[in-house]
Structure formats: C-alpha cells, structure tokens
C-alpha cells in the first residue's frame, strides 16, 4: 500500500469529516435541546449551496458570495423554525419525521422552480484552485485544506461557545431542563430560535463550501443528511464532542475504505471476486460500523439521551 496515497486519502477523509461535522453539530444541538428530529437539515445544506451559486453569479466574487450565503441560509432556517418547526417541538418523533419529510419535498421542488432543473456549478477563485506539496510526491488541493481549516476553526468556536460563554451555559441548561430555564426568566423560544439559526448557518456554510466541489442540484442534501444521521448516532445524540469524533471517524473510514478495500480484497481473493465485492463492501462500511457500535453502545460513543 502506498503511504503517500494513504495520506492523501486520509486528508480527503478528514475533509469529508469536518464537512459532516458542520452539519452534525447543528442537527445534534437541535435534537439535544429542542428534542426535534429535523430531516430538513439536509435541505438547509442544499439551500446554502444554491445561495452560493446564485450570489456568485450575482456578485462575481467567491468570498462575497460565501459571506452572503451563510446569513441568507440562517434567515431561511429561522423562518422555517418560526413558521413550522416551532409547532413540532412538543410532538412525538413520528410527527417530526413526517413534518420535516414534507419540508424536504417542498424545498427540493422549490429550488427546481426557482433555479431550474439543471445542476449549477460554482467556480473557486484562482488563488484556491492550485495545490500545495505536503510531502515530496504528494500534492494536495489548497481548497480542501481550507475546508479542513475552516471546519476545525468552527469546531473550536463551538466548543468555546458551549463551554465558556453565558449563551453556551443557557444552551446546556436548556438541553437538560428547558422548563426550568424558562421558569428562571429566560426567553426559551428565543433561545430555541437562536440555536436553530446557528445550526442552519452551519449547514449553509457546509453547503456553500461544498458547492465548488460538487454540482449544485435538487436533493443534493438527502444523501449527506443520512451520513449526518450516522455521525450523530455514532457520536451520541446531543453531544458536540461526539459529533466531532464520529464525523472524523466516518469521514476517514468511508474515504479510506472506498480507496483501499478493493485493493485489500485483491490480496486475499481472486481479482473477479474482489472487483465485485470491493465497492459493495466499501459503500456499506460505515453502516456496518454504526451497527457494530450501537450493538455494544446503544447510545453512541458519547451519548446520554435516548
């Protein structure tokens, strides 16, 4: 096995991991605090990417588009929270799944109505489209490194926000006993809206940053939503630390598995079997990982709530 290729694939995995973390952080906070299963979180990711494409076409600047796309997604998130989701907090999980499933159908179709059925593309600025040589013989795209950097910064910021600030204290208190926090004079509805908006902004950031790497199209958030679920289930629902650890694990296992499992199988089985089973097994790997973790720790690695 080529160690340089392994390094590059591990970095790709880390990049996927921090991307998943941006989504998982919002989803796990919303579940931990409002007890809400939000399937429409993937839609916010998609909306972030569409905003990125639209604003880039409009302003012609990558940075400006990014700076506009994130708050715009936040506004959409807050609107969705105020109009629909707020009414679902007190309902059971089934109602939440159904209501937010309806929202996914709506948003997937809405972007088609607004931006047309064809996929959009976002170009990255020239300064970020090159590669850097990490080790001799291992060039790596600057843009992916940037995503990793931004993701780690957001993780550090969230950890500071939740453990070191007054807002973070309220968030933690709201997670363990929202009624009591409300009784102590905190505007709990506002707190919920703020947390939801924060999650929406992070999802928008993930979508906007992923936009140059993918084609921006309807339903692009659906697949990544399921991966995010895997992440927060492995990490333990409600735990930011768990979300970070699990996001990195899932990102690396998935990416490295897809790259090396077929090669590894070729060493053991004959070529034909390996070529058939390799990709199949690689795409199932993270789900098997999740099943194995849940079989031994039904509440995930860092989870406290069920």
């Amino acid at each position, binding site marked *: 096995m080529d160690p340089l290729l392994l390094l590059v694939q591990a970095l790709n995995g880390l990049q996927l991991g921090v991307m998943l973390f941006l989504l998982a952080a919002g989803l796990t906070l919303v*579940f931990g605090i409002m007890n809400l*299963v939000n399937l429409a979180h993937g839609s916010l990711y998609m909306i972030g990417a569409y905003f990125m494409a639209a604003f880039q076409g409009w302003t012609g600047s990558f940075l400006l588009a990014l700076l506009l796309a994130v708050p715009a997604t936040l506004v959409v998130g807050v609107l969705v929270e105020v109009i*629909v989701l707020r*009414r*679902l907090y007190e*309902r059971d*999980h*089934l*109602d939440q*799944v*159904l*209501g937010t*499933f*309806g*929202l*996914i*159908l*709506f*948003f*997937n*179709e*809405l972007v*088609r*109505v607004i931006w047309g059925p064809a996929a959009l593309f976002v170009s990255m600025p020239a300064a970020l489209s090159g590669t850097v040589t990490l080790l001799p013989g291992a060039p790596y795209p600057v843009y992916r490194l940037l995503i990793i950097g931004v993701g780690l910064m957001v993780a550090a910021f969230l950890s500071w926000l939740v453990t070191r600030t007054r807002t973070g204290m309220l968030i933690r208190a709201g997670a363990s006993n929202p009624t009591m926090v409300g009784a102590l004079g905190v505007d709990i509805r506002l707190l919920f809206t703020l947390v939801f908006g924060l999650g929406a902004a992070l999802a928008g950031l993930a979508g906007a940053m992923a936009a140059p790497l993918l084609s921006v199209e309807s339903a692009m958030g*659906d697949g990544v939503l*399921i991966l995010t*679920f*895997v992440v*927060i*289930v492995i990490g333990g*629902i409600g735990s930011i630390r768990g979300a970070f650890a699990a996001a990195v694990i899932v990102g690396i296992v998935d990416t490295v598995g897809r790259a090396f499992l077929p090669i590894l199988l070729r060493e053991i089985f004959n070529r034909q079997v390996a070529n*058939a089973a390799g*990709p*199949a097994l690689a*795409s*199932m790997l993270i*789900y*098997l990982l*999740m*099943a194995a973790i*849940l*079989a031994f720790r*039904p*509440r*995930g690695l860092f989870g406290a709530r*069920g």
Partner: protein
Amino acid sequence: MRVPVIDRPRIATFLLFGLLALVPVYAGLFDQPFYLTLFARVMIFALAAVSLDLVLGFGGMVSFGHAAYLGVGAYAVGILAYHGVDSVLVRWSVAILASAAVALFIGSVSLRTSGMYFIMITLAFAQMLFYLAVSLKAYGGDDGLPIAQRGAIGPIDLNSSTQLYYLILVLLGLALALAHRIIGSRFGRALEGAKWNERRAVALGIAPYRYRLVAFVISGTICGLAGALLATLTSFVSPSYMAWTRSGEIIVMVVLGGMATLTGPIVGAIVLLVLEEILATITIHWMLILGPVLVLVVLFARRGLWGWIAGARHG
C-alpha cells in the same frame, strides 16, 4: 375484546374492498388499462403500509427503513428470474424467506436501541442495502434489472393484468385478516401493552424485546411479499425501490390513513398515490404542493382519514 359483526369500520372495510374489486370492471368498460396498473401498484403499497402499521401503529416502533424489505423481496424475484428460475412460487417463497431473514438481522440489532436511535438505525440499514443494490453491477447496478417473464401460478397467468390484479387484491385481504388475528391475539395485546407502558409490561412478565422482534420480522416478511409483487407487476427491479424517500412515503400512508387501524393505511396508500397522480397531471412541480399538504396533515389531522371514515378506533 369482542367486536360486533356489523359495525361501521367493518362495513367500511368491506365497501373499500368491494370498490377495489370493481376497478378492473371500470378499466375494462372505459378502456383505461392505466387504472388497472395504478391500482395494482396502490394495493401493493397498501400491503407494505399495513405491514408497517403492525410495528409502527401497534408496536410503537418508528421504522424508517421499510423500503428495504420491499427491495429485498423485489431483488429476490429479479435475481432468481435473471438466473432462469421460472416458477413464481419459488421466486415468491425465496423473496419471503429472504426478507424475513433480513428483518430478523436488522430487527435484532435495531431493537436494542429506542426512540431517535431506532429511527435512524433502521434508516441507515435501509441505506446500506440501497448502496449494496447500487453496487451489484452484475444485476444492473444503478440502472436496475428487467424481468423477462411474469410467470404463472397454476392456472393463474400473471401476464394477464386482470388476473394479477385480483391475486394482489386477495393477498391484501389475507394480509389484512392475518394482521387482525395477530392484533386480536394475546401476542398483539402484549405488543400494544408494551407500547403504552413498557415498565408495566415488563412487570407483568412480558419481555418486550422478543414481542417486538417477532412483530418486526412478521412486518418485514409481509413487506417483502409486497416487494415481490411490485417486481412482478413492473417486471423490473431497481435500487430506487429502496430509496429512503420510499420508506418515508410508506410512513406517510400509515399516518395519513390512521395509525393502528390496519385498514387506515390502505386508505392512506390510495389517497397518497392517487393524489400524486392527480397533482402530477396538474403541474410537474406537484411536490411543491404535496410537501406542505403533509405538514398540514401532521399539524392538524393527527387521527388520520380512517378515524374520520370509520368513526371509532378500529381493531
């Protein structure tokens, strides 16, 4: 619980099956074979919805991966047909056994969790099978696998749409009767009891895990039969049968029709699929309407349509 022979839900159920039995007559009279295929598909999804109601409505288990069994059943038929197995009975039996085995595995792992975790782990297992189907290049991968012959069971020729239609109708009726028997039995009472109050059920000597697992396997098996029927009807299998949105649609059918009512999910399947057809003829952006409709149903119509048709809670 003794149910009087003549009550509103029962009459409504018989009326519903009577109307379904008349669809081929209508389709033949007005030369609209399209309705025959549409309602055959509707009944297959109704079968899947009834199977989901057993675990969702009566067992309180929100399985977000029921499309997986639909897919397993369909792929069993497709793969056997691909390898030249012409006997429909063999195809369907293997489909049923395979989906039972998959449900046993998924259920035994998933039921160790509950609540949110259960929703997501069932979803993830379904995704796993979805990607497995996509990566099966030998069986068509992404593009799916056509089935050359629908085949025949004894005198019943499945290539005749009408005969296949009535066979599906009979199977739906049998599945509904079976589900009623299960729910009315001691087993069903225990299952429902564990849903309402797990601690009390445990104190009464009922081990909820076992009851839930058995219900889960029964449900997965019936859903697998629905998958085999779907593959037979469309003469085609593809990974899209297992798409996670499909699992969502089956849940919508159950809730729309009315949870824990058994006949309700059939009504839910009819209403949802017919509504989709109608909206699709009005605009290509029909999901823009269907999405908010779902949200409104969740917010304002919790009891489902069956509660409104049949009056009292059924079962």
